[in-house]
């Protein structure tokens, strides 16, 4: 049951106008061998009432209790305004704002987004979004290679305390162009980048620094940045935007600031939603503007001298430059940026700082509560944000299974990505968790530790 508005009479009139007798004739240029009669094997059409019931029942299967997983996707409170407005038809069903005069709503919004995001990162310019955090890192790596005119190398230093999926995605996307991704270790004691390993890679083109790193530990970003710059290495910061309300932003890391910042925009008003749609953000210093991938909105004037907004620097993009574009990206994640712009507007200057502070202090509360459990070890002695790695005295796999079957996701099983971190769970606490929630986690974990062999 498609959404066509045609009446029988319409069809007859239209066919007559075209000068044919049935719709099939419209396909007379297609060789018969390619045509199928009817489409078999698709579940038959259901009306909206049936579909609503069917899908609602499927969703209900996934009803769940408390989530303590972060690891790149963060559960923050999203004010009701955000999605009530984001799904307004005028935002939801507009195309990319190529026709500027008919798209000032989206364009002004993106301009505001760019302003907020570049302010948040202490950079000069932000693009209008990329697909997600991981792919934005891949794009940042390609950009770093373009902008680093002092190096021929395509070596990129990728500390192992970077989100493992970001590494994986960077590999899928960049290595075909000869990019070489170089692992360096983290210190087992504090989870931070092992700086001793760095010096042997001073020929690299770029250094990726995730802060807070995958384990939630706060890197010595100033030192790392200054070292990199001293070696003519471009610094790519991978950061959590909510953490940046509290922590030193990439643009002022070290003496000169990180060169490119990127990461996952999801924490800013986008629901967890099984991992997507999210969006990747990217900011940089002004001098690199023309190497930034993705759409960018600029301010200009109309023919009457009134201010307005347009997509700009399009000469970087595939629809103009084709094989010489900065990236192949076309469709981005506009609607997510719409939500984030509202989110940032609602929380404002002080509100986002408070969200970050609340996350931090609730994480501390959680750590204090969990520490007392027998056999539990909190890994990585460092300052932290969002996440903490907990080494369990029993199988992390079984603990997770047990706790999830009782309605709490205790965290990500780190041993899946870091063989050396056996039975270690990466737990995340944000502002949405109450003392009772933390207590529920502790109790259930206690129970799990008892029950599990």
């Amino acid at each position, binding site marked *: 049951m*498609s959404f*066509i*508005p045609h009446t029988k009479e319409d069809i007859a009139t239209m066919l007559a*106008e*075209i000068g044919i007798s049935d719709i099939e004739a*419209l396909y007379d240029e*297609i*060789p018969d061998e390619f045509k*199928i009669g009817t489409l078999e094997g698709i579940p*038959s059409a259901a009306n*909206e009432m049936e579909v609503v019931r069917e899908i609602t029942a499927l969703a209900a*299967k*996934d009803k769940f209790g408390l989530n303590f997983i972060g690891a790149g996707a963060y559960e923050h409170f999203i004010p009701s305004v955000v999605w009530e407005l984001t799904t307004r*038809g005028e935002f*939801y*069903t*507009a*195309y*990319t704002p190529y*026709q500027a*005069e008919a798209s*000032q*709503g989206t364009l002004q919004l993106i301009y505001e987004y760019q*302003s*907020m995001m570049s*302010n948040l990162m202490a950079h000069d310019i932000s693009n209008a*979004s990329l697909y*997600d955090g991981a792919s934005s890192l891949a794009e940042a790596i390609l950009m770093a290679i373009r902008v680093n005119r002092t190096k021929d190398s395509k070596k990129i230093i990728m500390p192992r305390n970077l*989100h493992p999926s970001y590494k994986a*995605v960077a590999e*899928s996307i960049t290595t*075909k*162009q000869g990019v070489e991704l170089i692992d360096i270790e983290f210190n087992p004691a504090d989870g931070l980048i092992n700086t001793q390993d760095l010096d042997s890679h001073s020929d690299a083109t770029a250094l990726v620094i995730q802060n807070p790193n995958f384990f939630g530990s706060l890197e010595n970003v100033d030192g790392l940045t200054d070292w990199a710059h001293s070696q003519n290495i471009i610094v790519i910061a991978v950061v959590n935007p909510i953490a940046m309300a*509290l922590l030193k*932003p990439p643009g002022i890391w070290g003496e000169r600031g990180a060169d490119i910042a990127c990461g*996952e925009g999801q924490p800013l008003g986008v*629901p967890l*939603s*099984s991992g*997507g*749609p999210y969006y990747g953000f990217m900011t940089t210093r002004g001098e690199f503007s023309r190497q930034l991938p993705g759409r960018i*909105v*600029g301010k*200009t004037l109309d023919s*009457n001298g009134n*201010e307005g907004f347009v997509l700009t620097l399009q000469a970087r993009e595939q629809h103009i430059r084709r*094989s010489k574009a900065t990236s192949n990206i076309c*469709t*981005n994640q*506009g609607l*997510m940026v719409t939500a984030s712009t509202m989110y940032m507007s*609602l929380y*404002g*200057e002080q509100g986002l700082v*408070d969200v970050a*502070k609340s996350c931090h202090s609730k994480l*501390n509360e959680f750590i204090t509560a969990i520490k007392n459990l027998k056999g539990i070890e909190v890994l990585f002695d460092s300052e932290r944000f969002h996440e903490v790695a907990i080494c369990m005295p029993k199988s992390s796999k079984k603990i997770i299974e047990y706790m*999830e*079957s009782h309605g709490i996701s205790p965290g*990500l099983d780190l041993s899946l990505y870091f063989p050396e971190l056996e039975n270690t769970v990466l737990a995340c606490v944000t502002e949405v968790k109450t003392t009772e929630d933390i207590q529920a986690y502790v109790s259930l974990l206690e129970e799990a530790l008892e029950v599990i062999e």
Partner: protein
Amino acid sequence: MKEQLIFQQSKKGRRVNSLKLDIGDSFSISKDKLRETPLGFAEVSELQVVRHFTRLSQQNFSIDTNFYPLGSCTMKYNPRACNKLALNPDFLSRHPYRGETNSQGVLECLYNLQSILEVVTGMDQVSLTPMAGAQGELAGVAMILAYHKKRGETHRNEIIVPDGAHGTNPATAIMCGCKVIELPTDKNGNLDIALLKDAVGPNTAGIMLTNPSTLGTFEQGIGEISSIVHDAGGLMYYDGANLNAILGKVLPASMGFDVMHINLHKTFATPHGGGGPGSGAVAVNEKLKPFIPLPVVTKTDDKYRWANTDDFPDSIGKLSAFMGNVGVLLRAYVYARMLGGEGMTEVSNFSTLNANYLMKKLQKNGFKLAYPGRRASHEFAISLKEITKETGATAMDVAKALLDYGFHAPTTYFPLLIPECLLIEPTETESKETLDAFVDAMTDIKARFVSDIDGIKSSPNTLALTRLDDVKAVKELNVRFG
């Protein structure tokens, strides 16, 4: 009325009181790690936020308010049920790393969507993870290269694209480290087969084709093209941007394609959202199945689970941190459930009917078709070359003038090989009345090329702003407030 920037509405110390939080008192970050500069966010009230973004929204054209015949973009109606169901809190609150046992609902949806897309493409395996068409292309070319590599043919690094190809095609090939070979189109809108024969060779990795092509016509030599490319050892990539034209009528696999993407935000009616998110699910035949990007959902003993590298050891890997744009996929699945197989065939039939009807009427009213001898697919191209010569009015002028009639502009200047091109795609969800009104507007604009060329040149004249200065925007780059 001009809406000020949100920053211009800011006042120090103002905030949304109902979002104030207990920030706790346990603080353990050292001063040197802390931010000292302000965020530079606006400080506004909740009412200000609501009013600002509501007013901004009203400054957009959108499918929900305007006919939007944007060629190559399939701006069809986005059913509200898809949105409502995808926003079910049980879907929204699922963390991507939650275990499979407590995720059977969403996994079932994704699995079923994979199966449906396998049927409509005629392919053997679908991966839903690519986040837009361009990323699907990237996955596709990567799979093609992986295939050749597996066969020891790492030298195959040439990707052939027609000159009418979408920009993402060559850009993707380059991102995959390939060389791009561009082939011209003949006067009927078909690929020049003779030149193709010359172009293929031992280094051919594959060809990327849209069919119906970006010119709005069916690539008639597709059977021969497929033989030529395959005989040369290359693979066939299908850019599914125009799948709407042949949904349920022609299976891309049967035309000889090995791999393809589907823009779910086109054919499967997920919203464009002012620029995304989309979804560029990829589909492959048996040859490329081992290389499919992950995650993919599979089913064992009635339980849905994520396929892993044991299932697909040769996978080209991951393209996103998690699983692509799941929320978009859910919308596409809901749409597919409402359509069923029959509804899918209706989609192509009626998008094609609308395009051919509109093409005929515009032609009757004096517009020159780019390929007058051809049927339209679900879209068609007009060339204003002669008109521009005679009157000075360009495709851009027509585009801007249409805005004053309440219609969004067609795609302009694409494909580039058609001079002063308007690529018009009405989609199946528009009524005959709307098409007729559009013809009236176009006809009126055409008359005004002579009677009111200044009015046309200065259009739009009824919107909040008149024509915006793109050049100034580049020259005096201003990309942030303050």
